[in-house]
């Protein structure tokens, strides 16, 4: 379903006198339909960079990312036009970032309901109902549903973030440390949620700081530039 072929990302920072920073280099892996791939490697190895290149938040500087899209057939995510990326983000690929990007004056339940309103054409009531159920499952207290996530704790924000990405059931889900700021109980709920999604056919690529956890939920682990820590 997705195949990274010699993917590389170099940042060229013009304002620091054309300083060059390497994000990731010669990354090749594939993910089959319904598979859960883990990305492992030392901090700074470029794991997040890879996910952001797939999601097109970063523009890859070398290599290809082949993806079998329902909307457009086989496409190279590294080079296709922006409107097609928007289409794919809308219908196919979801992304859980490390931190919630807060939307001012929008309550937790509406933050989570929004993807359903814009995507599946759900009615406002229906979307809010589903969002409420999902947040309840993620142990967000009912009294917080109408509050603004800007005031939430880190763990609560992260669970809102996960709920927002999971609720519309994307076909491919990119997970960047989704459990980093969660307590053990919340982690197990999230893991259960991800397992369910996998059973329903969602393919996933994930980064987890907890190796044991990663081994237990992924089908396979790809090591990102294992030699980089030696080279420095």
């Amino acid at each position: 379903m997705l195949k990274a072929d010699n993917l590389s990302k170099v940042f060229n920072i013009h304002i620091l006198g054309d300083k060059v920073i390497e994000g990731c280099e010669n990354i090749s892996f594939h993910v089959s339909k319904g598979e859960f791939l883990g990305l492992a490697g030392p901090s700074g190895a470029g794991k997040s960079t890879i996910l952001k290149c797939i999601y097109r938040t970063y523009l890859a500087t070398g290599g290809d990312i082949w993806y079998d899209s329902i909307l457009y057939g086989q496409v190279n995510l590294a080079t296709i036009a922006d409107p097609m990326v928007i289409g794919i983000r809308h219908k196919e690929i979801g992304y859980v970032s490390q931190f919630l990007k807060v939307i001012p004056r929008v309550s937790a339940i509406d933050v989570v309901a929004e993807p359903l309103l814009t995507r599946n054409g759900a009615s406002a009531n229906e979307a809010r109902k589903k969002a409420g159920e999902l947040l309840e499952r993620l142990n967000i207290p009912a009294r917080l549903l109408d509050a603004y996530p800007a005031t939430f704790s880190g763990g609560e924000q992260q669970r809102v973030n996960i709920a927002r990405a999971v609720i519309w059931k994307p076909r491919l889900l990119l997970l960047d440390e989704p459990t980093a700021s969660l307590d053990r109980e919340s982690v197990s709920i999230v893991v259960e949620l991800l397992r369910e999604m996998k059973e329903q056919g969602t393919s996933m690529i994930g980064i987890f700081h907890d190796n044991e956890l990663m081994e237990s939920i992924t089908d396979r682990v790809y090591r990102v530039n294992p030699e980089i820590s030696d080279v420095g």
Partner: protein
Amino acid sequence: MPIAPILDVKNLTKIFGKGCPLCHDSTGPEHETNVCRRCGSVVACSDVSFELYLGEILGIVGESGSGKSTVVKLLHFDWDATFGEMYFQNTEDRKQNIDMTIDIDGKNLIALSPFIKRQTRNAFMGVVYQNPHLGLRMDVSSGGNIAERLIMANWRNIAMMRDRASGLLEKIEIPVERMDEPPRNFSGGMQQRVQIAKALSNEPLLLFLDEITTGLDVSVQARVLDLIRKLQRELQLSMIVVSHDFGVIRLLCQRTMVMKYGRIVEKGLTDQILEDPQHPYTQILVSSQL
């Protein structure tokens, strides 16, 4: 399955002054000026080309004087472009209801007569300016402001217009009982919302928002932005949002263009522009954000 853009703009250019063959080549970001060194004309924008898709919000960001508002004024026919092309793809279900002298499909709107431009604007476009004084008559009632626009779009029945105006004011969260008050009595945030209601009154397919939250305090700003997001979701409008504030752009726009000295220096997905800016100027702009 790439869908056809609703708006296709090519080489849009506006030159203030007599213009000369050197105007284009002696201005722009690489020359750090938009004044032609031979004839002294001001090149407000040049070579502006982009596409806008149905239901999409496109951002234009840049510092003041970069030409971003110029682009909106040209697209809304407030100003005549010096040259350039602009094609508007009408949707099929809208064609039946619209009273147009000619079919504008496939025609370069920039080259059409002022009369057809006005018809096109009344039928398909809405605009909200930074300054409510530009978009509203301050001494006419709010309902009257909306009615004025409906009359231009060939509405004639007073009761229907009143109905429409009260429905719109409700949508933008202004108490209907204040419909007969002139905008002069309203706060800045309320004036801005009346302007939005007026812009929406003819059910436009294209909405231009020019620095609409600049000068509003943050709580009012959040409320206006939330309103825009809601309207976009419910009405499937295509919008062009001009702002110098990346916060506004990040919240509203899927794609963004960065302008400097009248040129587009970079365009891309908004998160890519913010997290992986390519052009040196965009890098400065992004890293200067609070």
